[in-house]
């Protein structure tokens, strides 16, 4: 039985460079499955060298209530029990407010509330050019339960890893610290936080570190766009030291990362000699030795 290790890239704050770093690392790691768990706004597939989609799976995120007017007796029980104010005075369910709890469905004395599963997204299993696997998903815009879709992506990735004998799952996580982030983090072996040297970056770094500590996940930090503000960059390094986090290094601001994105490439593929690529290679070396020790 192989020993699969899961490494997840998160950030707290959005736009710090999670996907650019994950893409670049996927270029360097061999024998891995890549998973994009930012199911709200998946971007990693745009810069990976994808071969083809092997399988598309439907995702059902939960149920929603619908009142059948011909069976409804206007008794108002559903409006009394709904905690989300999702039912109008003329007994129409607002699908935005409906949480899918089923209270109205189960408690309606006339049995007038239907409660059906809704298609909320899709999960794709793809092959990559280097014989690896890539799993990503798309939520149908505005649908709920992205945490559950994240869990589906990670399950599929683990199955692919077991099938193909790959020992590493490289996960691109969503921004924030809520439901989809928790779902991306739980049970992983290593969290890599990408931060930026700004007051907002520093603020959000503290909160995401609290979260990885809460789940007792080994945590390493990389400072992206490190030359924007030298004093915040040093502060981030000091923060790692004070909190016994692995400091992976700085990645200098690199306009070529946007150029690479426009060419649908990772920075390592597009400009292997630039400063950012060099820094990411060093980060990769450090990550490899951390993963070996785990």
């Amino acid at each position, binding site marked *: 039985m192989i020993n699969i290790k899961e490494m997840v890239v998160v950030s707290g704050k959005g736009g710090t460079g999670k996907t650019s770093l994950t893409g670049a690392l996927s270029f360097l790691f061999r024998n891995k499955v890549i998973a994009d768990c930012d199911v709200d706004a998946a971007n990693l597939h745009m810069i990976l060298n994808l071969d083809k989609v092997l399988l598309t799976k439907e995702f059902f995120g939960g149920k929603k209530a619908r009142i059948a007017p011909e069976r409804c007796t206007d008794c108002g029980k559903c409006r009394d029990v709904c905690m989300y104010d999702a039912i109008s005075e003329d007994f129409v369910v607002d699908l935005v407010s409906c949480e899918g709890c089923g209270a109205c469905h189960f408690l309606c004395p006339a049995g007038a509330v239907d409660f059906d599963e809704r298609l909320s997204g899709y999960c794709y299993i793809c092959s990559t050019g280097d014989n690896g696997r890539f799993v990503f998903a798309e939520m149908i815009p505005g649908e709920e339960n992205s945490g559950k879709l994240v869990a589906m992506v990670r399950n599929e990735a683990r199955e692919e890893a077991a099938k193909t004998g790959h020992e590493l799952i490289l996960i691109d996580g969503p921004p924030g610290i809520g439901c989809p982030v928790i779902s991306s983090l739980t049970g992983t072996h290593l969290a890599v936080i990408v931060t930026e040297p700004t*007051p907002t970056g520093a603020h959000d770094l503290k909160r995401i570190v609290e979260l990885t500590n809460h789940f007792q996940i080994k945590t390493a930090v990389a400072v992206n766009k490190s030359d924007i503000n030298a004093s915040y960059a040093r502060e981030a390094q000091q923060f790692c030291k004070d909190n016994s986090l692995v400091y992976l290094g700085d990645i200098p601001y690199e306009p070529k990362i946007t150029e690479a994105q426009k060419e649908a490439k990772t920075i390592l593929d597009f400009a292997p000699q630039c400063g950012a690529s060099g820094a990411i290679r060093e980060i990769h070396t450090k990550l490899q030795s951390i993963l070996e020790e785990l």
Partner: protein
Amino acid sequence: MPKVQYTDDKGLKMMENMNIAFASGKGGTGKTTIAVNLAYFLARSGQHVQYLDCDVEEPNGHIFLKPKIDKSTPANVLVPVIDQDKCTSCGECSSHCQFNALVTLPNNVLLFPELCHGCGLCIHICPERAIRDGDREIGLIEKGTATEGIDFIHGILNVGEPMAGPLIHEVKHHYKENCIRIIDAPPGTSCPVVKTIFDADVVVMVTEPTPFGLHDLKIAVSVAKNLGRPIGIVINRQNGEFPPLEEYLSKNDLPVIMALPEDREIARHYSTGDIILESLPVYAERFTELALNIGRLSGKT
């Protein structure tokens, strides 16, 4: 510092009681930057402004608006409290719970509070009346007054707490009358964003001219369109042309209501927690235009 000419355009007064939400899909495009600067601009122009930070997972508006917080209240959601003496382990509650928050064991029922959505169905469904409602704290609501008299409110989600939705709902309960309300949304395109923007008079989509920015903008736009909200586009960090974005915007009749250039000075001031307009008053004119464009989009001016 040169004196800034703020507008006394009557159009701004007409924007009273408008909800202006800032969204983007992709994170880090500049939602908060544009939102706090518009709030500052409107306040400097003599309007009453309320700033509501609905990015409860990572609220950042306070870093720039520097409010003096004078009220801090915990935000609670309903959670079932099970009287294990009355419980017969019949399994009705756990079999009806849609969120798998309850598990029935031979001698009792276990609750997983972080999975509970606080719907109260189990309380109604229990045949033994063994369940009552209790409170569970999910975060904090802080209120105060920020720079230029801006009425400030934000929610801070407890670390480890998955459910942002109810806290966003709670922040929005504090709408103040006779104000222009600036609402900062979280990144993404799913339920927390929907809960933030569903009652907006205008949704301002802040995007960046990159493939990632455009891809996520398209998803966010379809969310706002499904909700029937008017949309205006702000292009941040513009640097030359990016034809795919321009083509998409013109094909979908999405108006660009402001563009900010890629400017190292803006980045530098951002990285020290400054309001751009305070340090770079040259941009005041663009915010005048932004405000008036938002007013026109809403149909209120």
